[in-house]
């Protein structure tokens, strides 16, 4: 803990990991990229960023990171996934590519590209009671939605049509959207609360 804050890793195989590192660092965390098992060993929490879930899956398996990640999630490491990261954390992935695997942990089913093509990507305001009264501005980019929620999983936010776009289960957090892009740091602060409580 060289900077005083908790050491938080951001999975840096592909995607917008630099944005997450910047947000976490601005909140006082010692944020670091994680691409290798030995880097994972150093962290007290992990963020899986936005990006292409099928690519993260392949690279995590090709470089021997998938199993250590699964073990860490199973052992209770606080992990927060945004968009592709939510897909990586889901026990079940709908509309996955051939042979795509997830790390699992969240007892949910997630559908990839649930809104359609990039033409359907959008921004909107969401009520997220756990983060306070002010709505959060949320950016959905070829985003997934949570289609099935099992025991022990809390839906933190839904769209007006009722579709679930943010979930919590113990030390695991997932959002369909990208708080790292908007400057609203409440989700990251909420996650860092979990990291501090766990370490």
């Amino acid at each position, binding site marked *: 803990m060289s900077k005083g804050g908790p050491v938080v890793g951001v999975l840096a195989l592909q995607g917008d990991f630099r944005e997450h590192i910047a947000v976490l660092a601005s909140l006082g965390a010692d944020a670091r990229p994680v691409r290798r098992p030995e880097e994972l060993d150093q962290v007290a929490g992990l963020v899986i960023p936005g990006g292409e879930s099928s690519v993260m899956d392949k*690279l995590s398996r*090709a470089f021997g990171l998938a199993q250590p990640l699964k073990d860490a999630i199973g052992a209770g490491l606080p992990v927060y996934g945004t968009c592709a990261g939510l897909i990586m954390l889901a026990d079940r992935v709908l509309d996955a590519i051939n042979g795509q695997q997830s790390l699992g942990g969240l007892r949910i089913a997630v559908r990839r590209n649930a809104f359609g093509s990039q033409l359907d990507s959008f921004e909107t305001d969401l009520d997220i009671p756990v983060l306070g009264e002010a709505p959060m501005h949320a950016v959905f980019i070829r985003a997934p939605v949570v289609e099935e929620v099992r025991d022990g999983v809390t839906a933190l936010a839904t769209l007006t049509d009722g579709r679930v776009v943010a979930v919590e289960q113990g030390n695991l957090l997932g959002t369909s959207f990208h708080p790292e892009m908007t400057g609203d740091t409440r989700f990251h602060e909420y996650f860092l609360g979990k990291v501090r409580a766990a370490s």
Partner: protein
Amino acid sequence: MTDSTITDSNGTQGIGSNRVKRGLAEMLKGGVIMDVVTAEQARIAEDAGAVAVMALERVPADIRSQGGVARMSDPDLIESIIAEVSIPVMAKARIGHFVEAQILQSLKVDYIDESEVLSPADYVNHIDKWPFTVPFVCGATNLGEALRRINEGAAMIRSKGEAGTGDVSEATKHIRTIKSEIAALSAKSHDELYVAAKDLQAPYELVLEIARTGKLPVVLFTAGGVATPADAALMMQLGADGVFVGSGIFKSGNPAQRAAAIVRATTFFDDPAAIADASRGLGEAMVGINVSDLAAPHRLAERGW
């Protein structure tokens, strides 16, 4: 002019916003975008770990060798590729050909590349990209060109390189030029930025933003001549956010293996041992052409301005 459709920004709510357009490119960072000419190649690219595919009828190497006017691809081909894969699908429109862009948007491609690889349709104007819901990527050889494209609504920039050659030297030149021009702006005092904007032939507001932030407001990929894992890692070490690989994959001896190797080298671009592993046993790279052997009229990077 009182035309309410004249705009140089997109909103902050709903579809087609600036953030949504630029945001998809943010999600592609650290990835490899591969040119494909059939649904079968698209499948190989997705399985190899491509972060997106570029659907086109002929790869640049074939456009170069066959000659003639190169245009937007057949909608049937583009739709067959969209149907085959779940990663984003990009397609190319000719510079200035806003009707080709309208068609591509109606086909629901995820990104349009207004590309110098095709024959330009307008030698004066590029497409006004703001009215479109679909985002655009445009090529640039220097910072001024990149800023002019961003001013027209481009949500992503790729350095041009020299497509279809397998010679990475132009890609190196263009990414180095853009990066060093950004660094030079950052070092200028405020009163020097007015002239810098004039010299770059770019809008002052964008020049000021670059000087403040030290980076482009959109993602910067690199393209044109990348053929090996080492080429991809070179681009990443030079500061690219990701790479386009055109002819380099499907004009090589073993496309699936080469594609996967380039993906690995792009992620571990700063790890020579990992790049060495990715480079083993790939068979023949595309044969290639040295850019210095190309007569000036055949250089695609000089299209666009």
